[in-house]
């Protein structure tokens, strides 16, 4: 015999799993007094509004602030939920479906992994912490200006316990302590080898930095590196390049159209930094086996 509360829990758990397409996770229900208020604005949103089952201690679910008439960074319909403690700490969640996910960028954030897939973490020390997490097509921005109360890890925990708002409960699928895991950087650009057996790379410095920022060459094979600039680069016209890691060479562009070439055969395997003369622009050379 299951109690009526238990029955409704089972029904809603089933619904939650169906909606999220997840199975096999340990579930833990939390009462969500704000769910009703959230559902009241659901009809205004073209996506399922999610609320977190986990909130750090002291956050008042009942007095949630819901704003439904704002737009997302790309002009999309967006819902904003703000939870507060009595002392005034706030965690804000913004949810929207980006029209062009790759062109809406959280400045200075680093890519991280969340259990939903890709995410971004903006860590501004004790001033601000923010996480963007893509949950299916929905992007959720979770942030706080009270980092002492809500750390980056706690924001991630909030992100990873998001679920659809029901009228009674919200689900946690994972209650383990969180750790921010940076996304592995994409592999460095591999310099192609010409028919003559030379690895050729063109390294361009622009006002925004080097392109490619990281590239890799094979040890023992000759490399021909052409260096040029695009736009106003200031001190970027001088490249300090570790063709010999112990005694890096300097390549200097005399004008905006100048090109400098260096030929060398890398021998020491490893990752080496190349940079401008003032260390403002920096990039990485990988020499692989």
């Amino acid at each position, binding site marked *: 015999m299951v109690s009526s509360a238990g029955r409704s829990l089972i029904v809603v758990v089933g619904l939650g799993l169906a909606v999220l397409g997840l199975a096999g996770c340990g579930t833990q229900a939390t009462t969500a007094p704000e769910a009703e208020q959230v559902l009241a604005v659901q009809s205004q949103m073209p996506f399922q509004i999610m609320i977190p089952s986990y909130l750090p201690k002291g956050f008042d679910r009942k007095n949630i602030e819901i704003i439904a008439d*704002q737009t997302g960074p790309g*002009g999309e319909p967006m819902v904003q939920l*703000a939870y507060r403690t009595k002392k005034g700490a706030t965690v804000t969640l913004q949810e929207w479906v980006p029209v062009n996910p790759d062109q*809406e*960028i959280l400045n200075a954030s680093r890519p991280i992994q969340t259990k939903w897939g890709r995410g971004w973490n903006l860590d*501004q020390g004790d*001033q*601000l912490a923010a996480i963007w997490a893509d949950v299916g097509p929905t992007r959720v921005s979770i942030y706080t200006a*009270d980092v002492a109360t809500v750390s980056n890890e706690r924001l991630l925990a909030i992100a990873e316990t998001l679920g659809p708002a029901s009228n009674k409960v919200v689900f946690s699928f994972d209650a383990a302590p969180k750790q921010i895991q940076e996304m592995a950087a994409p592999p460095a650009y591999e310099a192609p080898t010409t028919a003559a057996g030379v690895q050729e790379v063109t390294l361009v410095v622009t006002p*925004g930095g080097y392109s490619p920022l990281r590239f890799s060459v094979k040890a023992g094979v000759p490399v021909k590196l052409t260096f040029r600039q695009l736009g106003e680069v200031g001190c970027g016209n001088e490249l300090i390049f570790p063709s010999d890691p112990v005694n890096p060479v300097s390549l200097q562009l005399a004008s905006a159209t100048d090109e400098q070439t260096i030929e060398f055969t890398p021998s020491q395997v490893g990752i080496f930094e190349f940079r401008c003369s003032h260390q403002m622009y920096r990039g990485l050379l990988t020499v692989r086996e």
Partner: protein
Amino acid sequence: MSVKILTYLGRPLVRRRWPLAILAIVAVGVVAGGLLFAFAGSPAVAKAPPGTTVVYNLFATDGYVALPDGGAIYNYGFVGGRAGVPLTFAKSVTPSDPDGKTGAYGDLTYNGNGTLAAGAPTPTPGPITGTEAELAGHAQWPAPIIYATVDDVVQIRFKNLGVNANPDAPNDPHSIHLHGLDVNAANDGVPETSIGAVPANAVTPGAGNVIVYMFSPKNAGTYMYHCHQEADIHVQMGMYGALVIYNKGDAAAAFGPGANKGGKLFGWDYDKDYVLLLTEVDTRQHGAEDGIFEGDYQGDAYNPVNYHPQYWQINGLSFPNTIHVGSGSFNWTDWIAAHPGYDPFITGSVSKTHGNSANPKGDKVLLRMINMGFETQPIHMHGFHAKVIGSDQRGWNWANTPKWGEGYEKQTLTIGSGETYEWLLNIGQQSVTSTYPAETQTRYDPSGLPVANTDTSKTVITAPDGDPYIGGPTVSGANGLPMPGQLFPMHNHDDYKATNNGVYPGGMFTMIEVLP
């Protein structure tokens, strides 16, 4: 080695006089300012909850902007504003009569303001949308004020619309550097050391990206923001604006600067605040970006080390525009609608009481001094010593006793580039009336109408060469004529910077008006 010494031999033959129109408007301003004060109430302000999210939508683009003496220059800048607040923006003027020597234009057609009732649009990733196109080519001068409260979370959604007013100008990337916020290097908005700048909306990788800058200010005070891409060019071209952070509970926090609302900063109460953003213009740099500058006397391209401005401005205005008047296309009503919070004409009441014995009568006016130009500026106020209560977003409690009349009170404040000062002015230091000798020729005529100093019915002092002297008449009578509403100049004391390309009065010059 010989040293060439330049000397001025004698006085200039042409004496410049304050135009009648300026004086008339000043007089009207006295009356209007008084009325304004009479009606200024303080409605209850709903206190924003902590951690409030404040959103600004900003776009980088170009445009043409009028000079104070009738011409125009090419500019880069930002346009946009607070999300959801109806937006009025100044449209780019249409310049004509280019001058290859100065890099400026001799004439222009004024195009008024544009409006977007729904507010600054949210940027759309990808190509420029129809609404965004309405803003392209209309860079504001200066950029919209960003204001928020301590612990707010500010989101600036930023898109680079590229050049539009002059499609042949360099289509540069742009960034936003939050000057004074002490964010980490990646967040710092310096393309070389931070996350790279945002490319223009053209066919380059990353074009059309919407970048969300997020920050949470922890120190109340006066800041600035500007593009840090090729800062020597882009700052001179106009890519800067004021950033003001209020304390929690400040009435002004809900309205921004210049809204006749008070607050408390570094322990000092104020009744109203003004942003005074100092900049200069070297028209040759603008002409160089525009492509019309023919080169210097040696034929070389413009070199920023030869910076030599011709115009000095407060909030993007030179005198007399700073006190709401001007010739040609200048229209104060239009201008302030498009640049809310940037009124540089300082007014205050002598009769305001504070119910606090430590605070004498009179409006406490907080002047938020920002030097966004490349020169150091000595700003001098007549009639007052104002208290320097802080600088660079930090309170200067060590410099001030909790008293007026002592401590770090200055009538001339030297402000270096990049510095900000909070300068607290007690209007009550002056009385509302000033007594002018009745028989003298003053800017206040007994009938209430101003007369120019050229009024020949009055005795005037003659200069040794026989020219009528600008300083006015011989003081012969002293019957006493009390006049309400005192006016005090506040100006750059490098007085050549109180000119518009050499014509006095002009430049970095405004007024403090004492009202009943």
